[in-house]
């Protein structure tokens, strides 16, 4: 009773704030939260254009029996782990290389790496697609000119996936550089001065001052990158259409295929739910490990 009264008092005290967020909260509930629950509901149905039949866990059972889905999950895991690791490593490397240079130089570097983020993924993917086109692309032209004929790097199941990973990494790198530079600039200058007086090398400054102090940024970026990369779709759709022979199919692409090509909204919803579970698991693991380190 006392607790309830205390809660009511607290609520009334903050009511202006709650009322201010109410419109946005309503929109959030309608357009973000409701679709999640609707997706969960649909995943238990066989949904056609005009029919909907309850099938329980059948969509999930079929997914786990489906070798293409397993392949898509493994591809996604590779995407997430490699792109996130590369982005963190290179983001830190570039930021630590330029953080103590002039502001003009820093802005230039920041702008260069952020450029891919500003152009759309569509334009980015189409440019890459043109470069790696086996018959008319820049890469094949260069290879032909040095005597290497008839090479299709996108036709190789392993290489095609890594090309897509590179594309995604370059697309994400700009964000890492921006975040790390902002975080490094925010480190108190005294720390660097003290290190200088103690005769610390640049490597020691990076290892013992910068990396520990930017760890909240690392934590934030890793989670963000997980969520972003696991949803990789446009690059796959435009560059490989999941091929050759499903070698570059990701969960999001499979979800799209099931929903809008195979018209199997139930199975697509089940894939969506699985993505939600995987992102949550990866995020929890990342959160726990980074917290333990700190």
């Amino acid at each position, binding site marked *: 009773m006392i607790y309830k009264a205390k809660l009511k008092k607290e609520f009334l005290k903050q009511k*202006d704030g709650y*009322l*201010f967020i*109410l*419109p946005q909260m*309503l*929109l959030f509930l309608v357009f973000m939260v409701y679709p999640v629950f609707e997706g969960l509901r649909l995943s238990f149905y066989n*949904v*056609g*254009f*005009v*029919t909907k039949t309850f099938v329980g866990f059948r969509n999930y059972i079929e997914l786990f029996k489906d070798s293409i889905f397993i392949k898509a999950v493994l591809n996604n895991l590779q995407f997430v782990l490699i792109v996130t690791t590369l982005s963190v490593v290179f983001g830190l490397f570039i930021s630590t290389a330029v953080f103590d240079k002039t502001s003009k130089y820093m802005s230039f570097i920041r702008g260069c790496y952020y450029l891919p983020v500003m152009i759309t993924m569509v334009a980015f993917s189409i440019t890459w697609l043109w470069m*790696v*086109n*086996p*018959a*008319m692309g820049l890469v*094949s032209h260069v290879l032909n000119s040095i005597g290497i*004929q*008839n*090479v*299709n790097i*996108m*036709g*190789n*199941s392993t290489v*095609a996936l890594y090309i897509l990973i590179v594309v995604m990494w370059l697309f994400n790198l700009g964000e890492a550089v921006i975040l790390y530079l902002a975080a490094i600039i925010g480190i108190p200058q005294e720390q660097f001065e003290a290190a200088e007086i103690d005769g610390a090398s640049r490597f020691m400054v990076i290892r013992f001052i910068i990396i520990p102090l930017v760890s909240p940024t690392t934590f934030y970026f890793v989670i963000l990158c997980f969520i972003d990369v696991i949803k990789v779709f446009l690059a796959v759709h435009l560059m*490989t*259409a*999941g*091929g*050759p*022979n*499903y070698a570059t199919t990701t969960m999001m692409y499979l979800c*799209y*295929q099931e*929903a*809008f*090509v*195979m*018209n199997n*909204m139930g199975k697509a919803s089940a894939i969506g739910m699985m993505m939600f579970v995987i992102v949550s698991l990866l995020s929890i693991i990342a959160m726990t490990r980074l917290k333990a380190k700190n």
Partner: protein
Amino acid sequence: MSKARKILSLVLLVLMVSTTLSMYGCTTNSTTKDTGEKTQVGSKDTKQSQEPVKITLWTAPDWKGVYDPTVAGANYGDFYKFAGKDFVKENSNVTVNVESVPGADRDAKLSIAIQSHTQPDIYVGADFTMFDYVHNGLIVPLNDVITDADKQDIPASIWDGVTANGNIYMFPYYTETGHMALNVDLFKQAGAEALIPKGGANTIVRWTPDEFKDALRAVKKLDGVYPFAFYCGSTQGDTYNILLLEMFGAKLFNKDGTQVTINDANGVKALEFIKSLKDEGLLAPGAESLNVLDVYQLFLNKKTAVSIFNNVNYDALNNGLKAKSIQEPFNIQMAFLPSAGDPMCYAYAMGSVVFDSGNELQTQTAKQFVKFYTNEPYVDASMSMLPLRKSVAQKLLDPLKVKIAESAEFSVSFSQKAPGYLKLRASLFPELQAFMTGQKTAQQALDSYAKNANAILKDGVANSVLLNGKK
């Protein structure tokens, strides 16, 4: 908090809430209006009804402009907008909204629209892409707007292709017909003119798979030119892949369209033949990544000597030569697809289907609009493509275009109105890619496709509203 700040906060809050609610209000109003329309069954004669009707038409990007694609500023869908304006003049209560939808986005856009009940009233597209929607009971028959004169003016084979259970589901307007083309100038350059099958400039010649391969071998020596380009990067243009798989007599389906049979000995032979072209260096590299548009572009850029080629490419070539974006000389010899038996090409009807909106007045108005623009005087616009009406086809001046139109008699029915055809085509390409990258043998790839495809067909037959007589 001071009183003034509290008042200011309150005013801001009221403003924000009222803005949000007014947005919902707008949505609610329009929804109510739609529901109101749906409950009414209007008169079949739209002229008599004054109730506002909004018709939405989606079209594949077919030709630019109204009658002449070369007019400055011409764009896709202009013809339907033009006809829509005239239709509205006669039916003041009707508004027509036209949207051009790229072929690659068609399935996804329609799927989303159907599931959110925002499908267009009319869709202009290829017959084989529309039959999945017919099987699902989403398309209404057009029997009541098609006259005997229409039936006589359009070939019976075309009507067969758009009819099921005695109902006509599409009003055919024009056709897309696919063959092959040889760049005669490149053959001359290679000193291989003799290997072009005899026929002459304005004819469509026949050749066997062996003659086809010999011709490709003869142009292999040309620097910077690939003899031919095969593709299986995506589903678009699958008609050609299917015809190539049928070159030794295999058939995609059995006679009644209930079983996929392409994995027989002749299908395997065809696939191995394609692989032999790759092994001999007669194909552009990367078939597993190339798509149909890449292949067209290679030919128009004079990078391939032989290519798949349809009437749309023929128009693109002529327009390019006229606009000097394609360099002369560019003489072509049209050919059927290589076949050990009868000559093969594809011809599918492009026409209009009407989606069941659930509103009788709207559906009837959509049907009337389809009838309106598929008849005189608007039907002449189909000359921008390849007209299906005999009365219009006889006005064609280009002798090769006349031959292309006539060759439709050799067209192969590849989809056979099978339920789930759109899913079938999506499952073919990964198998072709697996074969072309050496991950599967021809037999394994086709067996795997047949297994998946037959499961899709079985499911399609079981769920077909059309086949189960529910509609």
